[in-house]
């Protein structure tokens, strides 16, 4: 059962298995372990990014394609849901319509970009995706009637998922049983399912061909695998998963704007998470996203504490200023790449 769920791709070491189990368990229990809106928000963001980063690794780590258009697909998913809820009202039908529209648009775009440009050299492909993504970003802010422009869209979600919905009047273990909690578990379940689906894909015959193409596309072609077809499919699949991740984010935030789902900063974050977790290992997405998002969200708090404690110590307290959190994040990144060039999961023996 577990083997089938994990597609026979069990973590290769005990430490890794323990780490993964701990992360999943922590995410599952967050609303009760660490009550409060912030913790649940951070956990939801991790879940969304697990899917997003894993889908990017499908492309980068497994197929060897460098694309900068991944946030575009993420954005399409988020905007799809946001626009559908804004226009059609807070119904499940609107959610379905938004999802379907976004997935179709992403698949089509990824297919066209892939078919026309995956034949060119990797560096040109990366540049093409960069251009398409910038064009899309501009388009999204121009079409402000539809997208809300720079302000984005605030919208209502179906009743059961709204914070006002009460499952039970009394809180349990400090967590109020409301629509927000239900949304969290919806996001949790969806993220896990999507992750397992990707795990299945990379452990399917198709997934093995992707690895073969990454290793030696010339030979893969000579064996009878039409490389451009596999690359295109990989591109489409990665785009669809990124789109679904975007939809989850919008559903969770009940808001979407260019900065939450389309900005290049997110693209950068994805790259960092892939590298920290380990390229070419899907479990790396789980570890990378968890570590990165937690650091991103709590480093400032941590520094504030340190800053308070170190008050009066000249240079050190300045370094520990909460405004320096980006510096510390960068330092963490450099150190992790230096010590774990294959990523954390790669280091723990799951390189594939």
């Amino acid at each position, binding site marked *: 059962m577990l083997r*089938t769920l994990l*597609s*026979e791709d069990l973590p290769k070491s005990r430490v890794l298995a323990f780490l993964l189990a701990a992360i999943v368990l922590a995410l599952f229990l967050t609303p009760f372990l660490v009550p409060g809106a912030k913790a649940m928000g951070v956990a939801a963001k991790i879940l969304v990014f697990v899917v997003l980063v894993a889908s990017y690794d499908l492309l980068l780590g497994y197929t060897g394609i460098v694309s900068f258009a991944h946030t575009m697909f993420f954005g399409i998913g988020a905007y799809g849901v946001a626009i559908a809820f804004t226009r059609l009202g807070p119904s499940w039908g609107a959610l379905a319509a938004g999802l379907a529209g976004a997935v179709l648009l992403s698949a089509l775009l990824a297919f066209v970009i892939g078919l026309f440009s995956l034949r060119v050299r990797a560096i040109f492909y990366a540049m093409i995706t960069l251009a398409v993504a910038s064009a899309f970003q501009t388009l999204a802010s121009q079409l402000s009637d539809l997208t809300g422009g720079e302000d984005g869209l605030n919208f209502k979600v179906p009743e059961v998922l709204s914070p006002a919905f009460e499952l039970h009047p009394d809180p349990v273990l400090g967590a109020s049983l409301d629509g927000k909690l239900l949304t969290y578990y919806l996001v949790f379940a969806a993220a896990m399912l999507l992750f397992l689906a990707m795990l*299945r*894909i990379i*452990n*399917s*015959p*198709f*997934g*093995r*061909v992707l*690895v*073969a193409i990454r*290793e*030696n596309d*010339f*030979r*893969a*072609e*000579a*064996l*009878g*695998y*039409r*490389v451009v*077809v*596999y690359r295109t*499919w990989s591109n489409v699949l990665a785009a669809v998963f990124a789109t679904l991740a975007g939809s989850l984010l919008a559903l969770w935030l009940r808001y979407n704007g260019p900065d939450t789902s389309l900005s290049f900063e997110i693209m950068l974050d994805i790259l960092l998470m892939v590298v920290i977790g380990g390229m070419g290992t899907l479990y790396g997405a789980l570890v990378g996203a968890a570590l990165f998002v937690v650091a991103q969200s709590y480093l400032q708090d941590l520094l504030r504490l340190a800053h308070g404690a170190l008050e009066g110590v000249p240079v050190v307290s300045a370094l520990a200023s909460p405004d320096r959190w980006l510096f510390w994040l960068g330092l963490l990144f450099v150190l992790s790449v230096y010590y774990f060039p294959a990523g954390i999961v790669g280091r723990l023996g799951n390189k594939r």
Partner: protein
Amino acid sequence: MSSTPVLETRDLTIRFGGHVAVDAVSCAFHAGTLTAIVGPNGAGKTTYFNLISGQLAATAGDVLLDGVSLAGMPPSARTRAGLGRAFQLTNLFPNLSVIENVRLAVQARARVGLDLWQIWSRRRDLIARAEHVLERVALQSRRDAVAASLPHGDQRKLEVAMLLALEPEVFMFDEPTAGMSVDEVPVILDLIRGIKQDASKTVLLVEHKMDVVRELADRIIVLHNGALMADGEPEAVIASPVVQEAYLGMAPVAGEAT
């Protein structure tokens, strides 16, 4: 041998700038035969193979498989149509294990590459077939080694194993034993001999070692500066003055080229 040839090239030509690497080569290959292709270094043997298997596009001429033109077909489609090729310069999936290299060939042959939902490691049948092929090239002891870590001779064997796993109609060997140590060569030659026994298979063998050619070939064709210079029974071709002079006189017979 009046039946339609399995493979045929008609005026097959490729020009690189001003240099004609393969020059209007017309040749037909029939099932159940082994044709050796010989010629000095740079004669165009590998380029001829590249034109047949589709890695290079011909400047002129055509390749026909079972009477059907392959013009415009990518290498993958030609492989699926029954052309199998082992490369002169070893061409593997370097960071994957030996078994995985072969399994990918088996999987290509089984046409399950686009399956997204099966778990590959549960296809015991495909893995067993790959293991069987490894035994045939005497590489089973290196099953789980990373391909790039193999010594040269074993990499050549793996190259041949991947060709066997494809179970093609036409086998194209490009100097399969080059760089192998003396005791490794017989395994490969036995394999080629075995394929030759099968009357439905067609074998093309580029080989520099004349003793091997003499023993295995039903027919020899000689390429020289890209052109077909001689074509016929082994003894006759080897004995012909033009070949003696242009090729055998020039290149060391047991010489080695990679």
